[in-house]
């Protein structure tokens, strides 16, 4: 019975596809890309960066791939809400007839949509969500951002090389924070260092002074921190300065989430000298990045708001354009994903490759230092770790 | 014969101020007692102590021979001690029929039923109808309370109390706030209360008290200062002192 139903669906579907093919032979198609992201609410800035990255790509490359025209359909999901994400993804696929799903700032939102991909014959390009496991949930997922494991692991090497052997970790108590803690600990202890204490703090923490006090009391030589980008980072960095940790010489190590460029004007002087590892700095020195920053700044309106989700979105659009090219505008998820496996290009962030096995992006991770450049602050790249894959995949629960 | 309600040496103080001071009284079946006293005599506190809304500092309350001093208010209601309210406390958006049905259902132990409708329970509705008829409320049985006259609301207050089939009924100013012309309705209802019911009425309205009560208790400054017949009360020196004295020193 079920078999019959499925068969019927499939044949129906194939007929539709065949008709569509016949259609495209003669006419140019509009190819819709559905983008789900936080365009309002507390994470609106990150959503705005998605849009800026996409707009920048369209501005630089035009909205045509071959004869086909790309149309972006945005859907808002203010905070992680998988049920809503699934409903939106379904609506995009079924009603808006999008051929590609993209965006996804939060992991659960991406996870909720992956079960649709196969049936919908739609590839998904994750432009931010950073939990390693996402790519394993469906063969139609490609990620152009980063994972927390990926950006964190090199920091352990940095710490060891600077002679630090005792570190206290301080992370927000949720998925990515725990990822960061595990990644740092795994790499650091492999290198012979010791994590003397691992503190997890609630996401809603506003006052970090008591925690800094604990850092001081722990006797660690350095502090490794992970906080999601946003308002608390400001109070966190202030607390680090005000409680005298900086003057006491305790090093501050973190992933780049903590010093995203849009927060730097607010962090200001306080943040100078902070060391972070990340996949992208707006100040990255390359012709590709100059072009990108120029276009993206124009798209976002206020250049000070530009930060890392934009580059994930920009490269995501590149991947999608390659998929469209490979399929000639036809809806064929298998072919599309196959075409970008092993795809290598020079992104604004540097040389990158889509790893053919994991479909996650292999890229350079940079060590950066917050520094003043003219009258504004930047993440100045001081060292690079090339061709980093995602070490987190080895830890994904099967 | 054991009294239905027996109160012994009931005491309550609020922050050093003694509001109920060694009060004792008992009610027997068929008693019609009025409790009066000047403002601030502690009548409301007394009612709250008897119904269990307040915990006494000392003394004992027995219902039909059973000590209920520490029982919850709801327990006392189940044992037959029911009160009415001085200020109407009715459900503004519900009908008289529903009010009485609540009380009847509760008494019959059917209040917790989640299936069926009270309107289709013949035994409940028969009794609700009887009570509505008894207090001449049938005509407005299905009108929301916020839309009925105040006098009728007072009757409904009484109807709810009766629906609980009390053995002891505490009436807190049953005619309060009703225009004089309409008190007749209440009085008529009071006259027809079941004969074996013990009633303690708290009121200011002396006309009503004299017509209704066979016995009057006067409370002043938390103590019982008089317990006797309505005829004797006006002549009692302490009562006159309590009333006139307190008015003389009124703030």
């Amino acid at each position, binding site marked *: 019975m079920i078999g019959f139903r499925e068969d019927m669906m499939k044949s129906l579907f194939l007929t539709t596809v065949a008709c569509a093919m016949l259609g495209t032979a003669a006419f140019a198609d509009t190819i819709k890309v559905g983008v789900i992201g936080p365009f309002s609410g507390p994470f609106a800035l990150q959503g705005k960066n998605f849009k800026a990255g996409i707009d920048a790509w369209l501005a630089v490359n035009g909205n045509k791939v071959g004869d086909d025209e790309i149309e972006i359909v945005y859907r808002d999901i203010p905070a992680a809400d998988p049920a809503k994400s699934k409903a939106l993804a379904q609506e995009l696929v079924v009603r808006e007839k999008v051929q590609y799903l993209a965006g996804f700032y939060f992991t659960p939102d991406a996870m909720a949509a992956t079960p649709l991909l196969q049936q919908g014959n739609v590839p998904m390009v994750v432009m931010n969500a950073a939990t390693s496991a996402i790519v394993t949930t469906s063969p139609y997922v490609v990620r152009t951002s980063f994972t927390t494991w990926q950006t964190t692991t090199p920091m352990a090497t940095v710490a060891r090389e600077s002679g630090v052997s005792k570190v206290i970790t301080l992370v927000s*108590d949720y998925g990515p924070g725990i990822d960061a803690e595990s990644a740092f600990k795994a790499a650091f202890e492999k290198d012979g260092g010791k994590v003397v204490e691992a503190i997890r703090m609630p996401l809603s923490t*506003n*006052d970090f002074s008591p925690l800094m006090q*604990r850092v001081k009391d722990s006797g660690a030589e350095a502090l490794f921190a992970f906080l999601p980008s946003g308002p608390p980072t*400001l*109070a966190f960095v202030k607390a680090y300065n005000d409680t005298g940790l900086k003057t006491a010489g305790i090093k501050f190590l973190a992933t780049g989430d903590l010093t995203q460029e849009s*927060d730097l004007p*607010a962090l200001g002087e306080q943040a100078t000298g902070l060391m972070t590892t990340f996949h992208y700095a707006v100040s990255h020195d390359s012709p590709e990045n100059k072009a990108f920053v120029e276009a993206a700044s124009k798209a976002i309106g206020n250049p000070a708001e530009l930060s890392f989700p934009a580059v994930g979105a920009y490269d995501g659009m590149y991947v999608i354009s390659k998929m469209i090219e490979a399929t000639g505008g036809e809806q064929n998820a298998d072919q599309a994903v196959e075409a970008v496996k092993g795809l290598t290009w020079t992104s604004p962030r540097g040389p990158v490759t889509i790893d053919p096995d994991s479909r996650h992006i292999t890229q350079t991770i940079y060590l950066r230092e917050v520094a003043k450049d003219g009258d504004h602050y930047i993440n100045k790249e001081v060292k690079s770790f090339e061709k980093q894959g995602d070490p987190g995949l080895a830890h994904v629960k099967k | 014969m054991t009294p239905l309600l027996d109160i012994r040496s009931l005491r309550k103080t609020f922050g050093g101020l003694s509001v109920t001071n060694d009060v004792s009284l008992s009610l027997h079946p068929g008693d019609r007692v009025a409790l009066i006293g000047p403002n601030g005599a502690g009548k409301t506190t007394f009612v709250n102590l008897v119904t269990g809304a307040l915990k006494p500092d000392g003394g004992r309350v027995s219902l039909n021979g059973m000590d209920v001093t520490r029982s919850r208010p709801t327990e006392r209601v189940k044992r037959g001690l029911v009160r009415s309210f001085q200020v109407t406390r009715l459900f503004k958006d519900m009908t008289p029929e529903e009010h009485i049905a609540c009380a009847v259902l509760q008494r019959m132990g059917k209040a917790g039923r989640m299936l069926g409708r009270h309107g289709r329970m013949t035994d409940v509705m028969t009794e609700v109808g009887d009570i509505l008829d008894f207090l001449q409320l049938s005509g407005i049985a299905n009108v929301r309370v916020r839309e009925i006259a105040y006098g009728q609301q007072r009757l409904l207050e009484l109807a709810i109390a009766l629906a609980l089939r009390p053995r002891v009924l505490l009436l807190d100013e049953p005619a309060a706030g009703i225009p004089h012309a309409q008190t007749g309705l209440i009085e008529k209802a009071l006259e027809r209360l079941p004969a074996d019911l013990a009633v303690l009425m708290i009121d200011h309205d002396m006309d009503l008290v004299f017509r209704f009560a066979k016995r009057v208790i006067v409370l002043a400054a938390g103590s019982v200062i008089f317990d006797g017949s309505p005829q004797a009360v006006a002549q009692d020196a302490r009562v006159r002192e309590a009333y006139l004295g307190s008015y003389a020193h009124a703030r």
Partner: protein
Amino acid sequence: MQTVLSVAIDALAYGMVLFVISIGLSITMGLMRVVNLAHGAFAMIGGYLASYAARDLGLGYAAALLIAVIGTIIIAIPLERFLYRRIYGAPELTQVLMTIGITFCIIGIANFVFGPTLKTIPLPETLRGATDVGFRTIATHRIFAIAIGAAIAVLLWCLVEKTSYGIRLRASVDNSAMAAALGVRTELVYAASFAIAVGLAALGGAVGAELLPVEPYYALRYMVTFLVVVSIGGSGSIGGALLASLLLGAIDTTGRYFAPEYGEFFFYLAVIVIVAVFPRGLAGRRA
């Protein structure tokens, strides 16, 4: 010992910031009986105005605070006149709906006008950096916040208890019909109280910006915290709000120091216990 002192001073600073922002809400909720969920939005407006004045106009810190307070009151006046006046005395749920609606609108407008990034209020040289208090260092600005909190507590107490405005306010609250009959213009009293509450919110938003940074979502992000403070304190009580702020600041801070993993549990369990023991708030009056 040093740890205890150190935690205590953090608790005091955090508690005072909570107090400065929440006290205005305590006034609207306790004295005017309005569940004003838009309180955080007014604090946010204050923060934005102060930031604009200090950063973009280059004015001094004191001037920025003043502009924040006055500007926010000016913005709030039409809101009081056209929206809040409709919900005085309305059921709580109606007030919740209206004030959440107002909050959403203010968030949308702030996002549109100022953008989604964090805004800071540059501090004057004297408040910048850290001060050594013997056993540790503490941000100078926190000492300033503690002082502002203490000053507000004293001033408000004098205003409510010692002035004729206070008498009229308390009369209007106890029985507004009676107060009106006695010649108190309750509408004016309410409007004045609303202005004071909003002004305090704005001051709190600007002074507290070091700890609770200004961004569009501020209005909702900290709403729950303020509500908890006011309700634990017993709405309408200045002493209660102060006590609750310090107590909750202490609970939060010690929880974060000793068991950050369970900080959230610690805090909310404490809230449940306090409400269970003091159902009318720490300074609540008996019904």
